[in-house]
């Protein structure tokens, strides 16, 4: 607790008073005044003791507001009476709250739950080297592994733990929190499942029979139990953090675009809010409790339009698309396969019948990884183009009918290609080897630690979460072991490749699998690779140049994937307002170093840039500066015809501002910059907040900031190799974790046009999200609280904020945030670090709540 003397206000008042009154009177007056001020300030110094968060997947703010305003003739109240009563009339809502980054659940919740920059970049991520899949949304394997004791936390939480990024629930001890089943959850509440079954089936037989007659609905069994337990926990004063996560609206809105379905789903949520709010009011901590409703993204749904899917898997598997065997983490619905009822969803390979050189080798050599989950965008990894070239050359060299000249030329070409990449590959393998050495030593320690963990736990231990902590130690040892094995296999194969020598080279004695790693994509493709991607041998086979060397241009089939994907059109275009071009633009990261020589000094970024490709004449670079210093500034640079040559040099034309550029900033009437000043304004560097103010109401809203967030590799405590006090092994392990994050980075992100999506798992005709459209990123954030919390009543905050603001604002409301956005010491000890987002001052300071002070 701070003393009053620390307040600056007291220091200001005292001299003024003493100038007019005699000493004793002054003292008396000051004492009285101090007491009064203390009382007033203390009452205004509202601080919440307890936080209850209702996390709603995909709840669009505009829809909530619209239904809230509508009158229900049956009830005489709003269609959403609890939203109306709790938040619109008696709470605070943000009318312009946006996702920072992609409007996708796994990334977005990671920002909301941590208050830190984006580390998880998709609902599904693939490790390029070893094809490890991170499936952040699938609860069934999580529960199954819980049952077998092979995990403790959800996959997303495990990743964040490895990066040293704590989530909000970590601010509370195990017994202080009651958390729902969610993407970034800790521990599965298996008892809840049991109780849910009991509640559903062991009850009044008449009620059960009645429900059976009308159709037994099992979908809500677990959520209902979680809700019951949450409301029960409100009576436990030790519990200071509660949350409830629901995906019901998101699931429904993907399928249905009609008003009635949307309203029905929203009314269910409204009822949930009512029950929880009533429980809060009845609880002893009611006046000190803050209720927060937050969603991770909006929803692009329109009653007049059926959202159309474009099948990228089919495109990539076609001969025009390169004949790839494509791995996805979701089974394609087109199969309607009996296999697809497997709830564990192993990686699914869709074999291409039109592969140019890998026919019937889809199990060993998939060449594309596609994450289409998220729907309005897809992430695509392609196998490294040079690996394809080497693979094809080896296949050709293993042909017995190859002429000696061609064989010689092909062998030369093979070794030239190896040599070209050798330095880069060798460095990477050497580094990885070092890291795996450190990992091996860490595994040994972890196993020893695991062995020393207690096996029996008391009730108190369990309340403190010691049983879970002990299991985490052992689970981590097992996971590291599996990772080490997979990376070792990759390293060994790549070393075999690099160790080949022309003088001892005999392709007939070589097994391709020993030098070209199976189930691996290899290094990320450069832009040059993507523009000249090798998909197979030329139909006429290998071709020689006049000088006897292999003609690399004519010997291979190549595809420019940026052009190919960009130019896709469909023949069936039957809906008004939907274009026949499924792809809006493609985005990819360009290393800062590659741009250094082509950008003038005033345009030089200090971090990697994002290239937006909406066609040859519709391109842009998003250039960042100052992120590391906490003063991010961004610049949008219109360009055209960007290419990269074989040596890695980038070339492009600077383009004038024109209509139709990616994100359509110039064309959008809602850009908050006067028409005559737009070009000048757009040609300047602006902070992210300035961009947000100017553009948040445009069609792409905070897309510019989101793209930067998506493609930037932000450092974390767990990846920071320069952190003080690290041992050599710790430093190597930090580098390894950083590498793992880089390995999940896709070659390109494909962004869909309005009302298009890439979901071919189950179709999403109702609507989608994932892109940077305002309708997809415009999410819900509302606060309500008892009198002791100071949350303003009936307040609509129109100032735009994004998801980085949520966690610091909640910490500020609970008195856990210092003025400089750093956590209080107790949280710093738990791993929390300074928060980059703005605290929502309208919520925290309206009632005079003060930031915490450093102890």
């Amino acid at each position, binding site marked *: 607790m701070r003393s009053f003397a620390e307040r600056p206000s007291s220091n200001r008042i005292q001299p003024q008073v003493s100038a007019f009154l005699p000493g004793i009177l002054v003292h008396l007056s000051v004492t009285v005044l101090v007491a009064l001020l203390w009382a007033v300030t203390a009452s205004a110094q509202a601080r919440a003791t307890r936080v209850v968060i209702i996390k709603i997947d995909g709840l669009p703010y505009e829809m909530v507001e619209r239904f809230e*305003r509508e009158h229900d003739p*049956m009830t005489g109240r709003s269609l959403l009476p609890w939203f109306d009563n709790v938040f619109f009339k008696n709470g605070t809502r943000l009318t312009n709250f946006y996702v920072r980054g992609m409007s996708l659940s796994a990334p977005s919740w990671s920002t909301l739950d941590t208050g830190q920059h984006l580390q998880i970049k998709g609902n599904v991520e693939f490790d390029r080297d070893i094809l490890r899949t991170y499936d952040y949304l699938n609860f069934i394997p999580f529960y199954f592994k819980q049952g077998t004791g092979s995990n403790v936390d959800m996959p997303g939480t495990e990743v964040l733990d490895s990066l040293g990024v704590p989530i909000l629930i970590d601010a509370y001890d195990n017994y202080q929190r009651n958390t729902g089943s969610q993407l970034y959850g800790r521990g599965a509440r298996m008892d809840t499942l049991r109780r849910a079954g009991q509640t559903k089936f062991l009850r009044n037989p008449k009620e059960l029979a009645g429900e059976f007659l009308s159709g037994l609905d099992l979908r809500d069994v677990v959520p209902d139990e979680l809700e019951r337990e949450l409301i029960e926990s409100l009576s436990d004063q030790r519990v200071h953090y509660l949350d409830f996560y629901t995906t019901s609206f998101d699931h429904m809105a993907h399928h249905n675009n009609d008003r*009635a379905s949307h309203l029905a789903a929203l009314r269910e949520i409204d009822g949930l809010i009512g029950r929880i709010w009533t429980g809060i009011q009845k609880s002893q901590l009611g006046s000190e409790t803050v209720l927060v409703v937050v969603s991770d993204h909006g929803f692009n749904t329109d009653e007049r339009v059926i959202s*159309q899917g474009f099948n990228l898997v089919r495109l990539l598997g076609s001969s025009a698309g390169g004949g790839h065997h494509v791995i996805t983490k979701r089974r394609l619905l087109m199969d309607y396969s*009996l296999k697809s009822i497997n709830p564990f969803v192993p990686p699914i390979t869709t074999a291409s019948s039109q592969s140019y050189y890998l026919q019937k080798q889809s199990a060993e050599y998939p060449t594309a990884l596609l994450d289409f989950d998220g729907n309005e965008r897809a992430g695509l990894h392609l196998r490294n183009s040079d690996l394809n070239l080497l693979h094809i050359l080896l296949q050709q060299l293993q042909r017995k009918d190859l002429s000696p000249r061609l064989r010689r030329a092909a062998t030369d070409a093979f070794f030239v290609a190896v040599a070209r990449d050798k330095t880069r590959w060798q460095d990477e393998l050497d580094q990885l080897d070092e890291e795996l050495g450190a990992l091996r030593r860490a595994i040994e320690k972890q196993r020893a630690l695991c062995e020393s963990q207690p096996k029996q736990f008391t009730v108190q231990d369990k309340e403190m979460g010691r049983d879970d902590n002990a299991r985490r130690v052992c689970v981590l040892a097992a996971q590291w072991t599996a990772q080490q094995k997979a990376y070792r296999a990759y390293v060994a194969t790549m070393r075999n490749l690099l160790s080949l020598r022309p003088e001892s080279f005999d392709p007939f004695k070589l097994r391709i699998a020993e030098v070209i790693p199976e189930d691996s994509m290899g290094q990320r493709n450069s832009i040059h690779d993507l523009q000249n991607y090798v998909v197979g041998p030329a139909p006429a086979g290998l071709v020689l140049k006049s000088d006897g060397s292999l003609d690399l241009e004519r010997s291979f089939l190549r595809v420019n994937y940026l052009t190919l994907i960009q130019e896709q059109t469909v*023949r069936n275009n039957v809906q008004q307002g939907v274009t026949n071009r499924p792809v809006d633009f493609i985005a990819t990261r360009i290393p800062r170093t590659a741009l250094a020589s082509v950008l003038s000094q005033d345009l030089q970024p200090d971090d990697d840039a994002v290239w937006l490709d909406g066609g040859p004449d519709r391109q842009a670079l998003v250039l960042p500066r100052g992120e590391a210093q906490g003063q991010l500034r961004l610049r949008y640079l219109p360009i055209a015809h960007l290419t990269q040559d074989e040596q890695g040099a980038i070339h492009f034309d600077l383009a004038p501002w024109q209509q139709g550029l990616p994100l359509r900033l110039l064309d959008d009437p809602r850009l908050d910059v006067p028409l005559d000043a737009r070009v000048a304004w757009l040609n300047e560097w602006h902070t992210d907040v300035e961009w947000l103010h100017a553009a948040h109401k445009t069609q792409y809203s905070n897309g510019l900031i989101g793209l930067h967030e998506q493609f930037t590799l932000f450092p974390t405590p767990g990846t920071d190799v320069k952190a003080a006090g690290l041992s050599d092994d710790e430093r190597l392990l930090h580098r390894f974790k950083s590498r793992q994050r880089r390995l999940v980075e896709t070659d390109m992100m494909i962004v869909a046009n309005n009302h298009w999506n890439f979901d071919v798992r189950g179709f999403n005709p109702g609507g989608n999200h994932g892109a940077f459209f305002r309708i997809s990123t415009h999410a819900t954030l509302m606060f309500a609280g008892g009198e002791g919390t100071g949350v303003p*009543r009936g307040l*609509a905050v129109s100032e735009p904020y994004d998801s980085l603001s949520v966690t610091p604002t909640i910490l500020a409301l609970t008195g856990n945030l210092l003025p400089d956005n750093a956590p209080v010491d107790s949280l710093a000890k738990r791993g929390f670090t300074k928060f980059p987002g703005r605290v929502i001052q309208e919520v925290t300071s309206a009632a005079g709540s003060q930031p915490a002070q450093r102890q």
Partner: protein
Amino acid sequence: MGAFFESMDGKTHRPTRRTGRTDTGRIALRFVSLLLASAFWCGQSAAQSTNQFGTKPPAPGKAAEIEQPTVVTATPASLINIGERLAIPSSTEATVPSTESEASSTPPTQFRIERLPMIGGAELLTIFGRLDGMRTNGLPAPEVPLVSVVRDTLSDNDPENDRLRYVWMLTYTQPTMLKRIASAIPFFYRHVGSKRQASSGPPAPLLDLSNTSRQTWNRFFWMGLQNVFLDSYGIPLKAASRSYRQNAADYRTAHATQALSILGNYENLRQRLRDESELLALNQGSASNQTSTRDEGLNDTMTPLLPERSPAFTPGEMLELRARLILSGKTFGGFLGPDKFNDTVEKGSAASVDTIGHNWEMLRQRAEAEGLYFQPLNMPDGRPTHVLLWLSKSDLATQSDRSFSKRFLNIANPWSDLRLRNWNGYAQAQYFDSDNRPTTADNPEARRLEMIPLALYGLDHPKIPALLIDFRDDLNPKGREVSRRVLNDLTKNIFSLSSFGNLPYFLGRNAYKFITGRRGIDLNQPSRLKSYSELKLLLSFNGSLDPRLQREIEQRLEIISVNPLNNDSQSEIQLARQQYDSLVDFARRPDGLSARIERDRRAEMVPLQHGSLSRFFINLGNIVSFGRYVHRERETPELLARLELARRTERHTNFLSRIAKSSPQTEVAWDMSTVKHSLQFLADQGADANGSAARATALIFQRTSDPEARRLCLDALSKINNKSAKKALISLYRQESSDSEWRLVIAEHLRKAVAEDIHMKPPEVRAVLSQVGAP
């Protein structure tokens, strides 16, 4: 026993007494024949209503004069139904005048409602539809009566005691004898012409809304009779009776689907009008709100809610109609009460939108992948329910070696089909712009393509679109239509396999069902019927199709029809008009519909006079007499007053039950004036209310902090004063803290209730008073 055989027209049919010894076999045979005849005669009606208009009233003497409903004065309404009652003028929403002569000068709206007040206190509401698909020779689209509903108002203006009685789908008719016979022929899966002339009597209703549980019992009774009795007389009788019953049930289901679809379209269009006006208002509101936000800071708590425009059917009535139509297709549907209506309609409608969207997208993607053209066909509310797939002749010429996957499309490879190369069937020129969007010939950038229709699919079908028309092979969809019937008829009628009695069959059948369902196969699916029925409706409503193509589709639909009871679309329009005329005539006759309603009221009075045991036997009599026997009370002013009160009590009870369950704090979710109105009613006149009313009232007491509402709750519980009410009062008393003033008030009410209950035994009185103490 005389009353037992009293039929609807009041005539008494007494069984002929036989003397002497009779051959048991012959008796049994005759009884079977009688049952069979009954089955043929009233099998459908028994499934629909306990009391059909089986006995034909005299033919109409003169044409009916129908009150034009465009403006009907709003009646004063009690608080509970203000919104609903205001709806009535909005037969206005239907908007435009109704006579066909006017329709020729002013095009009628897509739907309108006509209201016919009846003597005796009821009204007939009829939804008319404009059938754009039936437009001929440049004449305006015909307007046809489609669905009629009778509302019993008890001759007053109080909506609280109104009750919907019957629903007619006017295209649904009693089959001719020829059709009945054909439908009883096993394995006879084809159309046998159409009925052209409706019977002169009133049409058979599709639903009797006041007797839904009895209809379900009737169905079970028939099922039992079939299994126990009819099935035991050899395969011919078994197969014939089962075939007939299946066809009759399918025929009825098809019309229920159409009625549901019409109501859904009507409601969606109404809702859309409302949405658009609200959206406009919302935008204006938002604009002003933004201004005020800027000027006055951010507090916007006083933003008013938007007003509601009223519908023709009250929301509750529309919900009941739709729910009952959905539930009529479910085994136990008739047993479910008003508390399930909302869920039923919400889930049914959401599932349908989901399925349609999914199939729309699947077909579009499959068409795209196979190089075909995709044309969705929409219902009047804009909902696509069917899709036509086309092939471009130019593509055919240039892509003859193109591969084709028939997965989900279920048609033969068009690229290698020689018939298409020499196609002399229907073809159409279509135009597309540079974005491949359909356009018209006058667009200068239009690209003309000569197109051949390949197939037509129904979208409202689980998993995959249902193939309904294959323009190259009529037997393809016919085979799919027939598949389920053949399988069922063979296993049940011939091999006598039952899922209940034969485990291997049960397992095999379910495994087959699972695999076909999982893999997405439209064979053997009962749900095909829905798509088929909706297509008939769509063809009537959708005016966008070329008439030649529409005729071709209709002809092919008749070919694939597997039900001899079906009629073609033209005949159905004719029948709808004839049946509507008959219905109007019946409604206008003193001994017609109003007499029927009056008899129904008398049947409704039974619970007011009889206890549960008597009612059990009365209901049993109804079931075993195939719905012929209906017990009725003699109407007296006193009983009529009690009926009126009972209806109001029921309505208020349902209303309060809904309130009680809906929200943990009543005043947040409900306008308390309407809640208090219902509580006041129970407090004043709730002496005959049941346990549900008491439980709901007690729950509301717990969930409100409004002192007036709480006091009314206690007054109501005192008034109800049955076992449940006293139990609720005791429970409330115990829950209140000892220093609560409400505890005293509850105790006072409880003592009053005990004092007024003359049926309470002294020990019970003592037990209660011992808890709350004497005054």
